[in-house]
């Protein structure tokens, strides 16, 4: 089975702090992509960062970075210098090609940045 698990339903930090969101996944595939999506109250789904499974170097996008541990099937998201606009639901996901292309999501983590 292809699954994604986000063990933190909610998190809350103060503005300017660093926060790490956890994600683990399970797949027998060797080639896949990993993603973090952000969903603000507007309901829009916004891609935050992506990682190719065959690349060992962790992806970085400005204040967002990942810690990708392929053997442990772990893909955490670190947000540095958090801002009020980072308040949102965050979803971890992976895309696989298993005869068919599928995009599988985790349960989500609700992140609140407090002023």
């Amino acid at each position, binding site marked *: 089975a292809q699954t994604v698990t986000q063990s933190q339903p909610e998190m809350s930090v103060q503005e300017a702090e660093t926060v790490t969101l956890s994600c683990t996944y399970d797949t027998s595939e060797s080639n896949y992509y990993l993603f973090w999506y952000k969903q603000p109250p507007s309901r829009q789904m916004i891609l935050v960062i992506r990682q190719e499974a065959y690349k060992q170097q962790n992806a970085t996008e400005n204040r967002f970075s990942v810690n990708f541990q392929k053997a442990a099937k772990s893909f955490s998201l670190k947000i540095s210098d958090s801002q009020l606009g980072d308040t949102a639901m965050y979803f971890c996901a992976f*895309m696989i090609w298993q005869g*068919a292309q599928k995009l599988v*999501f985790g349960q989500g983590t609700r992140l609140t940045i407090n002023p």
Partner: protein
Amino acid sequence: TAGITQAPTSQILAAGRSMTLRCTQDMRHNAMYWYRQDLGLGLRLIHYSNTAGTTGKGEVPDGYSVSRANTDDFPLTLASAVPSQTSVYFCASSDRQGAIRNTEAFFGQGTRLTVV
């Protein structure tokens, strides 16, 4: 470009009635998906299609059907709605082949469906 358009934005539906949620994309993406979003459960895949003329079942397909007559449209039909189908529904698309820059999935704005 518009990207992905879903209609309607929201709907209240009587139990037992049928309804089709519409999804259209203008990016010529091969792959399209339907998800339902429920609190605490994240986005669960209902059905997907990797190319026009083909569809597949996702994690929660029961009570839903889809068709893919062409590349751009991927409607989701509830034949006889039940209250447990109350949810927010998202349509998404991605390019099935190509470099990593094409693997990003693009989402519609969602349809909030309430079955009463």
